[in-house]
């Protein structure tokens, strides 16, 4: 992936749109400080990644808010960065437009996209930018940050995240523990605290702790608890009677002190389901079948007459079968029409009787349903009342309770008093509503039994049933809210009573006995949580080993290759000597600590970070970035290098020109930006044959940087280069092909200059093709034979510098060289 050009508007130091075309290999950009050099690099970074490393690493993010948009940009236009990239043989436009302060919309070839098609590759490799402010970043940051950065550079960031996640989960598992588990475990902790506070049960406490640590088995602990219990009951008590006896003994002692209890039985899951089912059933009864069926029974009032009528006809028809032409009652002769009339009437009466039978069945069904409803109401009422009655019985002992709990447990006592007031009100309401609904139900039942159905009765019952359902619903909610506070108050009372009755040990033993399974589960949970430390260690060692393998082999080799090139002969022997991972005293790898090693005259130093000079750290940072960008897996074939030599001496700066040449030979596209003009001149001279592009930001105004493209070199330098190549008998194909390119560029340069002199119009030499060259020279009035020779020269050399299987033509080059000299004579 190479970058062909970039268009920037309103981004950072850029206001009005500017376009920069990049050379396929080397582009040099010179500018004074603050002329917008870094904005170019940042524009490409923002385009590809949606943010810049300067903003990402900024400690105070607020200071960078809104910093992407140029403050002078016309408010009616938007900030955008657009670049054209080459992927193999194809080209693609990427455009990113700033929305608000830091959001953006993206387009590929003008089509909106959610993300770049190469986002996965971008995330997996280091950025193709070497920036002064970032050179030492990875070296000087805290070890954890360095680990993160190296993991990213090496494409191991998933491994880094995996480790961070498991360390977090295993170190602070509390976030993953559900409340019910925490509550459960705290109840077992309370038992342990209780044991710790009872000197008489000291042995048991030791066993408890050992069991918790996994040093004692569950069986030995339960046996010990049971044996301790035996000390409190009569000798010879059968095993199964030990616990009941213990309970009885405690009750006997406690009752001498206080006979009441704070007991608000919590709704079990089954109770809650039953409540819901009842309420659903009541609503269904009111809204559907029962009322409809009841109303249909109202027609039943005339039933007696219909039945008797039907029976009468049955009897008459029976007699008629014996003497069909005589009246069965008076013996009078019957005409055919009368017989027919009797048959017809009999059929009608029979139909009515059948209907009546169905109604009779329906009545029975209604009676059954009403009975069923009565039973459900009773059970539902009982479910609520049993709790309330049991709890409210404490009211009988409230004064005595006050004496026990006050003043130490004032809050608990007050909560009991509040609960009594609240739940007494609930009970009264439930009582009233229940009486009301059962009364209405009884009236309905009676009306059915007496065949005196009445719509008013069933309506009234419906209303009362709804009212009762609502009361049950609010009552159960009120009871539920008091469950936890009353359970707490009950625990406090139990504790106080044990203190007063001297039954603390017995009580604790009972609790242990009743909670043995709970204790076992709590310890299982403990063991799972403790085991997370082992998991953490395994993950850390695994990640550490992987990282060690990557940094000490692959990474060290890559970086060292470049570091050795930047070393100068006169350097003091204090050098980077590779990467490693820190280790514990036991020799275990510390997974998140990448070490940068240094040595001096063969002796290992503590760390490169503390031993290397500022310039060497910069050089190391640079080598690290270059090495990572040259990895085969890196999708980028371009590299932005922004002011790399700031802290270097002349010799190191010179060495770096070799590195640039090395990069270019490896087909890496380099965009080098600097404020050091002298050094850039040396780079241009050192990389002269690559014929790159050279830009200068010559001034800066409110509209942004003024970027001018300058010739890579003069036409005379080019002809001298060609001359040199021709004189060099050993010049290979590559050099000769370069000579052809130099001739072509000299032609465009000279044509542009002649045209400018003769016509006073500037022509961009870089954009002239062979037809343009001919046209310009014709307009300038040059002789036709000269124009033809130059046209031929340009056309041939233009083809020659493109082809891959170039065959050298020394003679042709020599001939063209003289043609170009001839052309130069037309320059004033």
């Amino acid at each position, binding site marked *: 992936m190479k970058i062909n050009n970039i268009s920037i508007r309103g981004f950072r130091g850029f206001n009005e749109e500017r376009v920069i075309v990049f050379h396929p290999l080397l582009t040099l950009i010179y500018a004074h400080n603050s002329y917008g050099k870094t904005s170019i690099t940042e524009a490409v970074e923002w385009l590809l990644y949606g943010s810049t490393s300067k903003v990402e690493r900024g400690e105070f993010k607020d200071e960078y808010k809104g910093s992407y948009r140029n403050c002078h940009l016309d408010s009616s236009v938007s900030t955008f960065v657009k670049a054209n990239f080459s992927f193999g043989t194809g080209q693609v436009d990427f455009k990113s437009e700033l929305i608000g302060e830091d959001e953006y919309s993206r387009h590929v070839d003008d089509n909106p996209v959610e993300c770049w098609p190469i986002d996965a590759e971008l995330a997996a490799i280091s950025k193709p930018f070497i920036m002064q402010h970032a050179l030492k970043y990875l070296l000087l940051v805290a070890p954890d940050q360095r680990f993160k950065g190296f993991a990213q550079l090496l494409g191991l960031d998933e491994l880094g995240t*995996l480790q961070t996640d498991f360390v977090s989960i295993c170190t602070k598992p509390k976030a993953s523990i559900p409340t019910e588990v925490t509550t459960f475990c705290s109840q077992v902790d309370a038992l342990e605290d209780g044991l710790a506070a009872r000197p008489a049960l000291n042995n048991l406490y030791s066993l408890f702790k050992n069991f918790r640590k996994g040093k004692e088995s569950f069986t030995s602990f339960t046996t010990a608890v049971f044996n301790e219990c035996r000390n409190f009951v009569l000798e010879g008590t059968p095993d199964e009677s030990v616990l009941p006896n213990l309970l009885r003994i405690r009750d006997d002692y406690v009752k001498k002190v206080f006979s009441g209890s704070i007991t608000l039985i919590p709704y079990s899951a089954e109770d809650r389901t039953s409540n819901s089912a009842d309420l659903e059933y009541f609503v269904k009864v009111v809204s559907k079948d029962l009322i409809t069926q009841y109303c249909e029974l109202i027609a039943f009032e005339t039933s007696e007459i219909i039945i008797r009528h039907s029976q009468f006809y049955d009897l008459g028809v029976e007699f008629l079968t014996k003497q069909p032409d005589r009246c069965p009652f008076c013996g009078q002769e019957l005409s055919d029409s009368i017989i027919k009339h009797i048959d017809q009437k009999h059929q009608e009466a029979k139909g009515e009787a059948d209907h009546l039978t169905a109604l009779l069945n329906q009545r029975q069904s209604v009676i059954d349903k009403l009975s069923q409803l009565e039973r459900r109401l009773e059970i539902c009422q009982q479910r609520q009342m049993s709790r309330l009655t049991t709890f409210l019985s404490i009211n009988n002992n409230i004064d005595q309770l006050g004496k026990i709990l006050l003043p130490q447990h004032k809050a608990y006592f007050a909560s009991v008093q509040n609960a009594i007031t609240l739940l007494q009100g609930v009970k009264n309401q439930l009582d009233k509503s229940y009486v009301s609904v059962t009364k209405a139900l009884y009236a309905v039942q009676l009306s059915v039994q007496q065949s005196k159905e009445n719509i008013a009765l069933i309506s009234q019952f419906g209303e009362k049933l709804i009212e009762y359902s609502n009361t049950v619903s609010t009552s159960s909610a009120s009871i539920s809210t008091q469950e936890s506070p009353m359970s707490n108050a009950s625990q406090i009372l139990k504790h106080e009573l044990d203190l007063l009755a001297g039954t603390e040990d017995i009580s604790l033993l009972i609790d242990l006995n009743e909670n043995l399974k709970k204790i076992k589960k709590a310890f299982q949970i403990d063991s799972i949580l403790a085991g997370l430390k082992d*998991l953490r260690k395994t993950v850390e060692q695994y990640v550490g080993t992987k990282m060690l393998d990557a940094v000490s082999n692959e990474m060290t080799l890559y970086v060292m290759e470049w570091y050795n090139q930047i070393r100068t002969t006169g350097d003091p022997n204090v050098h980077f000597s590779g990467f490693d991972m820190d280790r514990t005293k036991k020799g275990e790898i510390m997974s998140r600590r990448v070490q940068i090693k240094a040595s001096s005259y063969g002796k290992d130093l503590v760390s490169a970070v503390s031993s290397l000079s500022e310039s060497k750290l910069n050089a190391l940072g640079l080598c690290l970035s270059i090495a990572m960008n040259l990895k085969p897996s890196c999708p980028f074939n371009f590299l932005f290098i922004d002011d790399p030599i700031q802290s270097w001496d002349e010799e190191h700066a010179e060495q770096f020109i070799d590195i640039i040449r090395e990069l270019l030979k490896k087909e890496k596209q380099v965009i080098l930006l600097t404020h050091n003009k002298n050094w850039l001149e040396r780079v241009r001279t050192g990389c002269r044959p690559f014929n790159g592009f050279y830009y200068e930001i010559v001034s800066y105004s409110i509209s942004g940087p003024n970027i001018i493209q300058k010739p890579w070199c003069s036409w005379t330098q080019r002809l001298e280069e060609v001359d040199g190549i021709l004189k060099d008998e050993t010049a290979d194909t590559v050099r000769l092909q370069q000579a052809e390119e130099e001739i072509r560029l000299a032609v465009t340069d000279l044509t542009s200059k002649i045209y400018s002199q003769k016509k006073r119009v500037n022509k961009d030499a870089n954009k002239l093709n062979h037809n343009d060259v001919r046209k310009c020279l014709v307009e300038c009035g040059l002789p036709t034979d000269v124009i033809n020779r130059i046209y031929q020269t340009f056309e041939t050399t233009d083809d020659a510098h493109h082809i891959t299987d170039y065959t050298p033509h020394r003679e042709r080059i020599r001939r063209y060289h003289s043609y170009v000299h001839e052309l130069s004579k037309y320059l004033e």
Partner: protein
Amino acid sequence: MTEPSRLELYLEELKTLVTDPIHKRLLAAYTGDEPKESVELELNRLLIEVLKSED
């Protein structure tokens, strides 16, 4: 059949390094868009399982 991702390969290697079935379960839970949350949920589930177990 798709090739296992790099992360899946790491997890497979890690699973061979642990013996505790609970740890294997937690490592297996490291999947999806929010793998950390997924492991936390699995740990949560594990603890509830112990709480609700009959024995």
